[in-house]
Structures are given as structure tokens and as C-alpha cells.
């Protein structure tokens, strides 16, 4: 009986096997690259807001504490977006003619909410609580990035579950002294020092490495 396949088809079969591996690999990588890209995660994407509020100016240059506006961050799951009254505390007296601030004045005058564009949002099936994080030595900038350098606010992390778990698995890598939680210029010590200090703080603050599903999915 004659050969069904010519010898040259050996090459083709090898090529298809190895080629398939390469293509599946490349597809996987492409999917991963897309999933991690700012285009998909909104990480480091600046949002246009009704008023171009600058954290760099307020929290950075002026040195206003985070809690001055985000008043509920220590006692609630939600850090709190300030009411217009908080803006007007200062802006009833300074920059009163700035056209940039007209939406703020209009909001105060007409009792209408300023519709800020949400920057950090989690899916509804994720429970997150700010108060416990700041109470256990997780700094604002650990998740929100160099907020004091942001003229327009952007999302600093991917907000993926893996991103949360990085810290939940090894809190000692990220924890800082409680006195530095609200310091936007805090710089962690070198990796080795951080680990040493982190282990001490984890024990001192009784930080649990919570990784059960129901910690966040409840």
C-alpha cells in the first residue's frame, strides 16, 4: 500500500503542533496584556470632572489633611466625597471670581449636587471598608498612589482581586506606622527594612492576613 502522506507533511504536522502552542501562548499573552492595560483597567487614566479639582494643589501644595474633606474615612466603609459646603468653607472667601469654580457656587446656591465622575469603583459584589484599613496602618497612598502629585485624580491600581490579594497575603510588605497613614509624602523604607518593620507592625496592630472569600464577597 502506498504512503498516504508524503514525507514533507511531517514538517507540516510539526509546524502545526508547535505553531498551535505559540499561537495559543500569544493569544493568552495578548488577552493578559489587554486585561492589564490602562485601556481596560482605567489605571492612570485622568478623568475630566465638572470642576478640575486638583489633589496636587489641595493635599500637596496646601498640605490639607485628607480627612479635612474625606471625613468619614475613619469611621465608615465609604471615605466620603465632601459636600459643597466643605468647598465653600474656603471658596466663599478665596477665588470667588474664578469661572472654574462656578459649578461649585451654583451647587451651593441652588442646592444641586455636583456630579463628580467616579474614579475608583468596585463591582457591587465586592465589600470594601476604608475605616478598617486606615485603622490598621494602610496608608492612603498605598492604594491611591501619589495623590499629592495628581492635578486630576486618576486610579492608581488595577483594582483587580489579585491587586487586593497582594497586600492581603503579605500585609507586612505594605503596612506603615499609624502616624503616617494620612501623610501623602510617606516613603516606605528599603525592602528589607520594610519587611522588618512590617512584621513588627503586623503583630502590634494585630493585622490578620484575611483571605477567605467572605472577607470581601459577603
Amino acid at each position, binding site marked *: 500500500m502506498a504512503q498516504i502522506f508524503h514525507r514533507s507533511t511531517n514538517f*507540516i504536522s510539526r509546524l*502545526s503542533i508547535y505553531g498551535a502552542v505559540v499561537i495559543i501562548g500569544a493569544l493568552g499573552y495578548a488577552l493578559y496584556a489587554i486585561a492589564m492595560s490602562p485601556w481596560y483597567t482605567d489605571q492612570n487614566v485622568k478623568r475630566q470632572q465638572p470642576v478640575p479639582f486638583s489633589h496636587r494643589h489641595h493635599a500637596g501644595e496646601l*498640605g*490639607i489633611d485628607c480627612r479635612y474633606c474625606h471625613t468619614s474615612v475613619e469611621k465608615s466603609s465609604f471615605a466620603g466625597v465632601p459636600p459643597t459646603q466643605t468647598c465653600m468653607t474656603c471658596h466663599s472667601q478665596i477665588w470667588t471670581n474664578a469661572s472654574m469654580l462656578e459649578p461649585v457656587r451654583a451647587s451651593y446656591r441652588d442646592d444641586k449636587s455636583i456630579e463628580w465622575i467616579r474614579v475608583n469603583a468596585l463591582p457591587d459584589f465586592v465589600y470594601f471598608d476604608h475605616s478598617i484599613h486606615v485603622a490598621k496602618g494602610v496608608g492612603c497612598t498605598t492604594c491611591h498612589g501619589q495623590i499629592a502629585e495628581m492635578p486630576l485624580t486618576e486610579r492608581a491600581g488595577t483594582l483587580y482581586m489579585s491587586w487586593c490579594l497582594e497586600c492581603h497575603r503579605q500585609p507586612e510588605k505594605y503596612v506603615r506606622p499609624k*502616624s503616617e497613614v494620612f501623610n501623602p509624602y510617606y516613603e516606605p523604607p528599603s525592602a528589607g527594612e520594610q519587611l522588618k518593620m512590617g512584621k513588627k507592625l503586623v503583630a502590634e496592630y494585630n493585622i490578620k492576613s484575611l483571605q477567605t472569600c467572605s472577607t470581601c464577597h459577603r
Partner: protein
Amino acid sequence: MEYSKLRTDLIPGVFGARGNTRSARSLARGVTVACLGTVALLLFGCRLDMHVQPKYLPYEPTDFFADGRSERQPVPGTVARGQLRLDELMFTGRENGVVVDKFPFPITRADLDRGRERYNVYCTPCHDYTGTGRGMIVQRGFPQPPSYHIQRLRDAPAGHFYEVMTNGFGAMYSYAARVEPADRWRIAAYIRVLQLARNSKIDDVPESERGKLTQQSAQQPSGQSMGQSR
């Protein structure tokens, strides 16, 4: 022929085997099934009904109410459970309508520490870290508040500071929404500390503590001085 067409369309150049053979056909079929399966999985992954649940998160807008707010103002006169404010001193700084110089609870070291922390967060933008009224916002054009160290304010009763924080005063807005009543009292107590510190002499400090004082002024505490140092 159908499969051979399909497979070359799918992944050009790889499955271009000569002839429409049985093995090539089954391979192509496998690939088709795998692709359809992936597409089906991706489609299922696109359901968002758990991502966006029919509930309102804080400040989420709504079409239901005319003003677009999902959070509603309570009916005027509503008293939340546990918030019936009967203690006149605690919630107004007055007794029988008169502003008094006392605190509604004994002030401990912990209260003073908390008072300092709250003061540094909410008051320093204008009143600055020592209470002279030259904070960063004042430097940027806000009307300068009086220093805590003038005679009128050194003589003012503690209830006066509580009242100003609660209701606002002059250009200063109310801080009632930002600082809780007990914390307002702790801030008032810390203002007393600032006043005391400003006007004390080294002889007022117990001898055992004096070394600490010079040591502390040499090295600024981190964190607390963050706003100033810039």
C-alpha cells in the same frame, strides 16, 4: 472542502496541509469546538448583573427622585435613634442659655491627644499649628482669624470655642458636619493647651521634663509637621 476552508480562515498558514484528509478534518473540528467554547465562555463572562446590582451605593445618582439624589434628607425634626440631644452643655456649650467655661466630660491625656489630632486636621489650614491664625489658607488670601493668644480669647469660656465650631463665626463656616460634638470639645481643650503653652515659662515645666522639651524642639515630629515643612 468545507472544513479546509474553515481551518485556513481561522488560523492562516498553520493548518494549510495539502489535501483534505481525515486527521486534518478532525483537528479543524476540534479547533472549531474550542473556539466556539471560548466565545461562549466570553459571552457568559459579559453578564454584569452582579457587577451592577439593583441597590444604591453612597451618593449614587437616581432617576427616581427629581433632584437625582438617592440619599434623602430626613424629615425636618427627625431624631435618629440614640441621638436625642438633651445634654445642653454637650451639644450647645451652654448651661441655661449661658456660654460656660466647663467641659461636659473630664479631659484626659487621651482626649488632648485626640484634640490635637483633630485640631491639626480641621483647624490648622487657617489657625495654623500654634493658633496664631496664620495658616496656609490665610497665607493664600483667606481673612485672618484672631490669634488664640489675644486676651479676649484667653478669657473666653470653653463653651465659646465649642459654639464657634458648631455654628461658625464670621467668615468661618460651621464644622458641625465634619467634627463630632465630643471631638469639638477635645479641640477646645487643645486650644487651651496651645494658650497655656504660648504663655508659660520654662519654670512652669517640671524639672524632670525640661530635657524632653529641648530635645523635641530640636527634632520636629514627622507627620504632624508635614503641612508646615513644605
